[in-house]
């Protein structure tokens, strides 16, 4: 497979404009929700002094983790030299940028003082993961842009391996930072663990590849371009491995917590009697997000059915959002243990499970972030040459090793 032809999608049909318009509408609604939240204050959301991070953060962290993982496909081509993945690399880069942009937009618009973004970019406390993230995230945009350029500009092709390696290392640091946002919090029983950083890296592999597959299948099916089974089967099998690895990390995390008596209370909360959090953990994260996709992806016959492959990817995305909800919100709902050995009660909701109900503005903002990411991808593949003309089996070289 010496030359792959990349071409913009035509993007002139009424269906295309309708799709773009629909996604843009959700993006606009998200921006409107952000304005509403900023104008009236967070009192109009479901967040409160006990659960300070809510639905916007569930979506934002998911998008950021998926962004890092979406770049994986390109890395497998450039860094690990698997030739079959090389045509897939450009879309991978675009998707990574788009998902990160969507996630960051949600995060920045949810700030109590979003007008102070300049302050966030000029005052730094470098002991804070958030301060590092300002550089890690903006650097990610730059590095992936350079990486894309090295792939799309013929004269720069020689540099694409180095750029790919740089992007790969950068995103490992970035995702370590994302996991450490929670891992560094010594105060909360549901977090304070070094395992969260590598767990987030593995989660990023799973979420990112699931989103990549969904976008790729949609783009090829709706633009009428051929998409062969060889690519899908390879990626589908890989996705199954990633989901299994993610489940392993979750298993080890909870197993270790169950070994420590002092962690029993929070584990009982998440695994047994946390109500919505327990349901989302077992049914959302483990069954729908883990077991069902693995059953499909590890069975060649089931994996070959495109509908089931899409269903598996959607299930992983849903499971990912459930996992974010349980981690971020469940971790806050469980009360702080300020007086170990004592039951506590106060007017500031000490000692009780904290209430949180997602509100419409928060959900709209989160969905708006997804929409912004999709607008970037949908428009990007129309104006620049991200998509190979054909990914039919005859075009794709099954001999993978470089």
């Amino acid at each position, binding site marked *: 497979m010496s030359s792959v032809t990349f071409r913009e999608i035509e993007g002139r049909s009424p269906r295309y404009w309708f799709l773009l318009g629909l996604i843009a509408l959700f993006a606009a609604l998200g921006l409107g929700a952000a304005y509403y939240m900023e104008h009236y204050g967070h*009192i109009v959301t479901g967040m409160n*002094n006990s659960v300070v*991070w809510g639905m916007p953060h569930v979506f934002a962290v998911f998008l950021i983790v998926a962004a890092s993982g979406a770049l994986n496909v390109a890395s497998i081509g450039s860094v690990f030299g698997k030739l079959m993945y090389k045509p897939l690399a450009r879309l991978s880069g675009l998707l990574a940028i788009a998902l990160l942009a969507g996630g960051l937009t949600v995060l920045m618009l949810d700030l109590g003082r979003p007008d102070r973004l300049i302050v966030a970019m000029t005052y730094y406390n470098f002991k804070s993961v958030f301060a590092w993230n300002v550089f890690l995230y903006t650097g990610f945009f730059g590095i992936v842009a350079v990486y894309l350029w090295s792939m799309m500009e013929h004269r720069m092709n020689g540099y694409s391996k180095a750029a790919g390696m740089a992007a790969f290392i950068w995103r490992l640091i970035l995702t370590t930072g994302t996991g450490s946002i929670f891992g560094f919090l010594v105060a909360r029983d549901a977090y304070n663990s070094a395992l969260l950083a590598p767990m987030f890296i593995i989660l990023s592999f799973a979420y990112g590849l699931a989103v990549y597959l969904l976008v790729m299948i949609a783009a090829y099916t709706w633009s009428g371009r051929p998409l062969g089974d060889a690519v899908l089967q390879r990626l589908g099998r890989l996705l199954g491995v990633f989901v299994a690895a993610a489940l392993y990390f979750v298993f080890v995390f909870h197993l270790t917590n169950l070994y420590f008596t002092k962690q029993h209370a929070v584990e009982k909360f998440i695994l047994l009697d946390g109500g919505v959090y327990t349901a989302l953990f077992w049914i959302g994260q483990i069954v729908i997000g883990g077991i069902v996709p693995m059953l499909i992806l590890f069975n060649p016959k089931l994996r070959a059915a495109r509908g089931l492959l899409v269903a598996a990817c959607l299930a992983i995305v849903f499971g990912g959002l459930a996992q974010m909800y349980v981690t971020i919100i469940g971790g806050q709902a469980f009360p702080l243990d300020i007086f170990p050995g004592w039951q506590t009660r*106060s007017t500031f909701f000490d000692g009780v499970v904290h209430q949180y109900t997602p509100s419409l503005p928060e959900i709209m903002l989160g969905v708006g972030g997804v929409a912004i990411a999709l607008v970037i991808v949908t428009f990007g593949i129309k104006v620049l040459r991200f998509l190979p003309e054909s990914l039919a089996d005859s075009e794709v070289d099954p001999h993978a090793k470089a």
Partner: protein
Amino acid sequence: MSQPDQQSPSSQSVDNHRRQFIGTSAALAALSVTPGVMVYGLAHSKPDDQPVTNKVRWGLLIDNTKCADGCTDCVTACFTANGIQLPSVPPKETDPQWIRKVELKDMRTGRTQSLPVMCQHCEEPPCVDVCPTGASFKRADGIVLVDKHICIGCRYCVMACPYKARSFIHEALTDQKPDVPRGKGTVESCTLCVQRVDRDEQPACVEACSQAGHKAIIFGDLNDVNSEIAKRVAGRVTMQLRADLALNPGVRYEGF
């Protein structure tokens, strides 16, 4: 103020003298307490144009044996002095609260007690570590504050605090106290009444508890070996909340 006992008419002149004496003393006491002058050991007051230094470390000592169950004078005083709206009844989870009375019940014996809990003004505050802009900071004299000018309202410090000390302001505020600026979209917590401490007064909760006669909270300079708080911390068994986290809070509890 306490009243003298009734006297027989034959000692009227002595009565008048006593009454005058007691009245004047009471007036003087009232005068001295009303503006909140520090009674306990106090570091030398700092000139206005000089920065605070780490020679002083402000702290609180809460004596559980003197803290009365059901009394919330410290809480009310804090709200009043800092211009915070009193929490709704029943309280909403969005209501800010800088100090609260926590009712404790021993899980094994059923014994109950109550304690005030506020920002512990740690020496190694996790809230300061995680703030991306440095808005959450520790002043040289140990008071942990939020610089609301650079707070972007990300609430990471609220996630990081082990004592649930921080509140986020969820709606626009009006009628703030000129001494205590607070606004929508920023995070706040107990300031150890920094505006009063800088004027050589005591925090409002300390003063209210003293006025109520309990004297369960004392305030002072932990670095000054002659201050009452330093003597008591050195001489008696006092504990810090979540001491296992090694944050070395400036707030200590005894009689727990």
